[in-house]
């Protein structure tokens, strides 16, 4: 290293000081890529960490936990496990749910048995002591305990009231005590309230059911006897109820968010790819500009290895700086993202309320190392080039470029091969539920098109030369000469720009197609005139009581009512939804489009008469189920196998849903009421009129949210747009980085070609013409980048729609290109690149011919 150290000053530090702008841009480029990745990893890690922490806190001292696959654990299960008590095992039941509060906050509600619960979870009151009397305060109906920070946030004190939406009305709960933020109160980052189990069951409309039974095992139990105990417990459990380690639920949540995370991470990687272009570009420019200096230090005895290490170190240094900056930026982005989705009650990816940002070391390290390693990798080529500078001869730039030009055709051939491999990679199915080959195909397209960039630049330049000179004058030829003359630089800029553009085009095509598909689907499925749901929306507790269903059934002016009921189930740890509706209503209206295009009315009628199930497309893809196959549902009286009558399209839920007729559902799961209802009106009755009648009939007893067809459709699309807002942000970042790349390339070209610009001035070219030539270069770079980007983006969009989306979510999406959006966005890119040419163009125009020619 001592041989390398003296080279840092002359070869790196001083030139860096001279090129501060380019240096800063490079660091920023890496930072943006790393930030995107870090934000995604951190947001995911935070969601999981806070969920896992909650699982830990809620599980407390439990050695085993009993959970249900189906709608709940029947209370009788406690009696079946009573034999455990004489063996020193404490049985602690609980129910839990996420609830929307009156003010819009979202909290967890844990229903506990105050007598047994202290055995597994700790409760500390502000009075600094735990007395059973204080815990017993929640025996009183509708009383809750609130952690101090939450009480402070909501302005609560002992005796004050807390509004919560449950069972279609606003329920007032009384604060019976304030808990210190310790023990159980730390669950869900303190956004949790505790009620007596009976209060909670009534709020959740879950009378007779439990969500969990925690088993506290005697101390000093050996592993063998513990396993034997677990086995005995398993044997005494009813069907659909399982026992295991408490932490297994974290794995379920992990699986839930995995597809989402993998998709976002892939997008983040592409952003990083664009960022690392900067390292390559900056370093290869450095090497070119310091060629003479390198020759000099080599002549003075520096080894080629030392020179190689110096430039590799520069790449590493840029990588470290950019990555560190990226981590800070990414943490901020993750925090903002969590705040944005954590506060809303609509997001379906968050398993619980308001996770806080966890700076998980593994996520940070992964993002940092990815940034550093890609920086070093992209520094390899320039560092090798530096190491090969011959101290004896000063190579002419032209001859270096000439050797590069010979690589154009082999590179293009390699690019074509990669594109062919990309096509092959679209064929295989998912690996472990993830579309790994699909992502490989996306990256192969990016790599293949990048390799085609030099070919595209030279071909376009040569073929357009004469026409361009006729149309635009000699400036076009000067621009062309610069573009092909510094192919190593311009082709890389074009590749980077095309990467950014392709990402934008692909995501726009994917999201646009998805949106168009959802719009179609919404208009096919949301055909009812009115939709009734409890106030508080999807996070309202419990269900609308059966009384509401009957009331609407009998309401004058209402032609038909389709009540929706569902619960979350798991099979082998994989979550899915069991839902129900009135198949007779669906069969009459046919508003449930089938994935294979078969007749909805006939399929649903058959399912109704034969007691068969319908499954959603994501369910069919995820579990590999086809019409005619059997699905097993966790009915309360034991598993029930139903034949699948058909697969319907559903974009509202990627977990997958098994839907059965309401009568069958109520028989299997003994659940009544409705989560929401779709109403069709008698012709001539206006939605407004019906709405008034419903409100009049329920006034004072139920808090209902009644939406017309149009407003529900709008809400559905608004939710869609909010879900995909982050992807637009990502693509905007990628394009911005790529445009910065064009700026940095042009700047480098101008700096490098000062002599030639001076010469042009001597030959009588005006400053305006020199500057115009630079702008033409920018236009050509942007046109080529856009052209290749559209090509790659179209291919990637196709892969995202038909391979990645299909394999990760099971959704069939029809391609629908958002032409208007694309034209607008690409127009902006052209304007941005032309604007980016401003400073380099002015710099070129200001070149002092006499001074630069004197430098020889």
């Amino acid at each position, binding site marked *: 290293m001592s041989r390398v150290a003296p080279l840092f000053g002359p070869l790196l530090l001083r030139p860096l000081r001279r090129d501060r702008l380019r240096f800063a841009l490079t660091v920023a480029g890496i930072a943006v890529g790393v930030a995107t990745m870090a934000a995604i990893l951190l947001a995911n890690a935070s969601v999981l960490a806070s969920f896992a922490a909650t699982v830990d806190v809620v599980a407390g001292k439990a050695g085993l936990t009993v959970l249900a696959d189906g709608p709940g654990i029947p209370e009788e299960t406690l009696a079946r496990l009573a034999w455990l008590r004489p063996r020193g095992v404490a049985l602690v039941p609980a129910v839990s749910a996420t609830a929307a509060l009156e003010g819009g906050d979202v909290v967890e509600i844990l229903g506990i048995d105050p007598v047994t619960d202290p055995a597994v979870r700790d409760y500390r009151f502000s009075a600094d002591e735990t007395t059973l009397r204080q815990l017993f305060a929640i025996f009183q109906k509708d009383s809750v305990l609130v952690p101090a920070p939450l009480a402070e946030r909501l302005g609560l004190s002992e005796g004050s009231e807390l509004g919560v939406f449950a069972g279609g009305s606003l329920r007032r709960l009384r604060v019976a005590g304030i808990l210190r933020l310790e023990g159980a109160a730390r669950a869900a980052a303190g956004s949790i309230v505790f009620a007596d189990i009976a209060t909670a069951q009534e709020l959740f409309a879950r009378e007779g059911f439990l969500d969990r039974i925690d088993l506290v095992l005697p101390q000093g139990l050996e592993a063998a006897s513990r396993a034997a105990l677990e086995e005995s417990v398993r044997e005494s459990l009813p069907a659909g109820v399982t026992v295991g380690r408490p932490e297994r639920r974290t794995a379920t949540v992990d699986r839930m968010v995995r597809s989402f995370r993998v998709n976002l991470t892939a997008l983040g990687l592409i952003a990083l790819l664009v960022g690392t272009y900067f390292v390559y570009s900056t370093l290869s420019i450095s090497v070119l500009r310091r060629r003479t200096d390198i020759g000099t230090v080599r002549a003075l005895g520096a080894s080629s290895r030392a020179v190689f290490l110096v430039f590799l170190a520069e790449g590493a240094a840029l990588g470290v700086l950019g990555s560190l900056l990226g981590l800070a930026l990414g943490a901020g982005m993750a925090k903002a993202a969590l705040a944005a989705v954590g506060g809303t009650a609509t997001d379906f990816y968050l398993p619980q309320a308001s996770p806080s940002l966890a700076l998980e070391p593994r996520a940070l390290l992964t993002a940092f190392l990815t940034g550093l390693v890609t920086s070093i990798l992209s520094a390899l080529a320039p560092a090798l080039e530096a190491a090969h500078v011959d101290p004896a001869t000063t190579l002419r730039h032209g001859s270096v470029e000439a050797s590069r030009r010979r690589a154009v055709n082999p590179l293009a051939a390699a690019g074509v091969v990669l594109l062919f491999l990309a096509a092959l990679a679209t064929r295989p199915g998912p690996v472990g539920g993830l579309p790994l080959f699909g992502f490989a195909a996306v990256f192969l397209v990016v790599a293949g098109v990048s390799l085609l960039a030099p070919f595209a630049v030279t071909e376009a330049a040569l073929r357009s030369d004469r026409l361009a000179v006729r149309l635009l004058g000699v400036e076009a030829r000067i621009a062309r*000469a610069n573009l092909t003359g510094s192919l190593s630089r311009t082709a890389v800029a074009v590749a980077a720009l095309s990467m950014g553009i392709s990402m934008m085009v692909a995501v726009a095509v994917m999201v646009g197609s998805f949106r168009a598909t959802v719009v179609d689907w919404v208009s096919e499925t949301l055909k009812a005139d009115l939709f009734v749901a409890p106030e508080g929306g999807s996070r309202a507790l419990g269900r609308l009581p059966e009384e509401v269903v009957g009331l609407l059934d009998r309401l004058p002016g209402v032609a038909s009512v389709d009540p929706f009921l569902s619960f979350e189930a798991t099979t082998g740890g994989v979550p899915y939804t069991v839902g129900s509706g009135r198949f007779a209503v669906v069969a009459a209206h046919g508003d449930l489009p089938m994935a294979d295009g078969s007749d909805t009315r006939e399929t649903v009628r058959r399912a109704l008469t034969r007691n068969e199930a319908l499954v959603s497309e994501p369910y069919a893809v995820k579990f590999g189920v086809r019409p005619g196959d059997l699905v097993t549902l966790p009915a309360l009286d034991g598993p029930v196998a139903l034949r699948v009558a058909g697969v319907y399209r559903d974009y509202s839920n990627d977990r997958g849903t098994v839907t059965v007729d309401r009568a069958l559902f109520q028989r299997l799961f003994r659940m009544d009421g409705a989560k929401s209802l779709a109403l069709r009106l008698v012709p001539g009755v206006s939605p407004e009129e019906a709405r008034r009648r419903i409100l009049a009939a329920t006034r004072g007893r139920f808090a209902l949210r009644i939406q017309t067809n149009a407003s529900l459709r709008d809400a559905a699309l608004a939710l869609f747009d909010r879900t995909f807002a982050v992807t637009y942000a990502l693509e905007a970042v990628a394009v911005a980085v790529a445009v910065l790349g064009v700026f940095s390339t042009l700047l480098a070209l101008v700096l490098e070609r000062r002599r030639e610009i001076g010469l*042009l001035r001597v030959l*009588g070219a005006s400053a305006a013409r020199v500057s115009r030539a630079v702008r033409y270069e920018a236009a050509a770079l942007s046109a080529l980048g856009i052209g290749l980007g559209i090509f790659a983006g179209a291919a990637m969009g196709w892969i995202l729609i038909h391979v990645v989306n299909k394999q990760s979510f099971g959704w069939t999406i029809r391609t629908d290109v958002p032409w208007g959006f694309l034209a607008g966005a690409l127009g902006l890119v052209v304007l941005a690149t032309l604007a980016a040419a401003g400073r380099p163009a002015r710099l070129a125009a200001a070149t002092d011919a006499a001074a630069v020619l004197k430098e020889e």
Partner: protein
Amino acid sequence: MGAKVEVEGVRKVWGTGRPEGEGAVSEALAGVSFTLEPGDFVALLGPSGCGKSTLLNLLGALDRPTSGRVLVDGRDLSLLSDTGRDLYRRRTAATVFQFFNLLPTMTSLENVALPLLLDGIPLAEADARAGAALAEVGLPEKTGSFPWQLSGGQMQRVAVARALVARPSLLLADEPTGNLDSRSGERVLDLVSNLVAARGVTIVLATHSTEAAARASRVLRLRDGRLEE
């Protein structure tokens, strides 16, 4: 026709960056005066740093004198607008350099056609005239070659073709043989003197080679910014 050049008491002073007082400025030209008649072939002889390049830059309107005047065909170059200076370099004064200064990313033909295109001559005519100019310097077969595919002598001949293609009346040559072996240098000088004789172009040839200077009809010796004719 060649240009008439009148240089009257020209001084050119550079700031050296040192504090004020002695040595704060360096005098590249210390009051130089001479007159060239149309068709004159003048050698500007002197050691490195004597002010030859500075004088050529002034004659090429790349720079303005600190004091004094440079008149070409009666026009004071200092008084020309930026556009006028661009026009002057395109049509009146052409330069040949020691290091050829061909644009490395253009072919010979494109390099030679460049001044014509800059002057708004249509592409087809520019190409035809550039081809003819390359034939005149003996390189008709090298039209499609890039500079890095040519020898030094060939590059300088392309540079001569480029300098003369727009039919300038003044040719400024800055050490045109300085970077060539003696045989190639001879050929380039032959070429320049023949073309000049045929067209009556006024030539200023800056050199420190006395052999090169021997071809000139008149020799100006420059030392420390002063003429010692």
